[in-house]
């Protein structure tokens, strides 16, 4: 290579990330998952505006009020937004490409005021609509994590 020339072959340096984090569940997720493992889905209620939140959190962001009251919410709810995803990403949990297509929805569980982001068992768009009712389907073995819900099943209209 003559002096002064830069390289024509461009090098890329591969580095694999191999880090692990241990997240604390704290009192909020600790209680949520304790209930969850036992089959209850619980929300936390703002004493001021009365909104029932999923997931649990220390304060209601709108009112800046501490929340302590747990409310049992239903495992059934209503679709408020939906999509069918065709584009695969590397799953941030497994590190492998996620299988597509899959249905997703923002679901308002009965007695809660926020929407839960989860899979639905339907990839036919003609069956998905805002307002459709769904019910959570749990894995047989429960580990006390959100992934215990396998997906939401569309209920008959």
């Amino acid at each position, binding site marked *: 290579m003559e002096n002064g020339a830069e390289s024509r072959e461009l090098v890329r*340096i591969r*580095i694999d*990330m*191999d*880090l*692990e*984090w*241990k*997240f*604390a*569940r*704290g*009192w*909020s*997720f600790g209680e949520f998952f304790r209930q969850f493992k036992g089959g209850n889905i619980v929300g936390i209620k703002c004493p001021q505006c009365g909104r029932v939140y999923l997931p649990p*959190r*220390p*304060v*209601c*962001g*709108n009112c*800046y009020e501490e929340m302590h009251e747990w409310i049992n919410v239903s495992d059934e709810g209503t679709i408020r937004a939906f999509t069918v995803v065709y584009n695969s990403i590397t799953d941030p949990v497994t590190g492998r490409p996620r299988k597509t297509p899959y249905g997703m929805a923002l679901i308002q569980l009965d007695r809660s005021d926020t929407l839960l982001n989860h899979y639905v068992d339907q990839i036919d768009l003609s069956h998905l609509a805002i307002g459709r009712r769904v019910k959570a389907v749990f894995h047989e073995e429960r580990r006390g994590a959100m992934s215990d819900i396998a997906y939401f099943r569309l209920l008959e209209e």
Partner: protein
Amino acid sequence: MEPARVAAVGVAQTIYEPFKRMTTAEMVYEAVKGALTDAGIDISEVNYIVTASVDLWDGLTASNIAVTEVVGAVMRPEVRVASDGLFAAAHAFMLVASGHHDIVLLVAHAKGSLANHFAVSNWTFDPIYQQTLGMDFLAAAGIQANAYCELHGLNRSHLAGVVVKNRLNGSRNPVVSGVSSISREDVLGSPVQAYPLSVCDCSPATDGACAVVLASKSIAGRFKRPVWIKGIGYCQDVHYLGDRTLTESEALIRAAQNAYKMAGVTKPQCEFSLAEITEPFSYQELMWMEGLGLSEKGEAWKMVESGLTMLEGKFPVNPSGGLIGGSPFIIGGLARMAEAVLQIRGEAHARQVPGASKALVHGTAGPCGQSHAVMILDIAD
């Protein structure tokens, strides 16, 4: 320029400890609630929020998402400075000094024990020439410590003096949990991690949050115990370790010059009641003292050995215990600021420096102190 009139009017810290059993939101809420209470204000009075956190240490994309609600940033402005808390403090100072915002809430949070701190720090080094060698903050600090000791004829015992002092101070600091005092022999007997640094020369990985409320001069009258920010400065050095003069910190010298100029400080050796210095590693307290102009080059160890920098000494350094005494990385500089505010208010209890009225506060980020922030706090405006 005319020093802007900005005061710290409320501070709070969570307990600093490893493997804190709280979510980041729970932890930060505790600090924010404490600081608002301390200032005697309601969240609705806060005009702007500045947070400090770094994604890769938190294992989250945009990790300020985790704290949006608990810092009161719902339908309020928030900005995140992804660095040590004192850099965020410098930015918060400018927000108030701009005249646009009267009350700014400043929050730093970190979970040092969430991941392997040094493994994460490997990702700070450029991926081309340094990261793949396995370089991390520990190895880099080892090189710097060795070079510094070699240049000034110091040995591990000189560094141990800092550890003994900061662990003793930390053990007296109620916001720190699980730090015990240690003898020089035990420090010297502890296993070497990166020569000449032993386990005890490295600050422990701890979790916590620190919140500070800043207010403008125009409204500071309503607060009982304002502590005034008289000057700030920050500066960053070049990156490649082989490009740097590791035995002294030009970036710190410049950061301090800027802060001193703003504050009208001309003799740093004799103007402060105390200094709070961010020392992820023991030797750094010595190096940063020199960079801050508190001592001649290579002589800071004498101030430690003579007891001058002990809590009972004439010029206490890190009465809080510093990072070696238990405060977490990233919060580092902001926790130093919180301690200085408590000292100036006379609320430091067992670690109170008598008559503390003016304090020097320091924060650092990056390998071997690549970037530094300096703040001067004063009881008088």
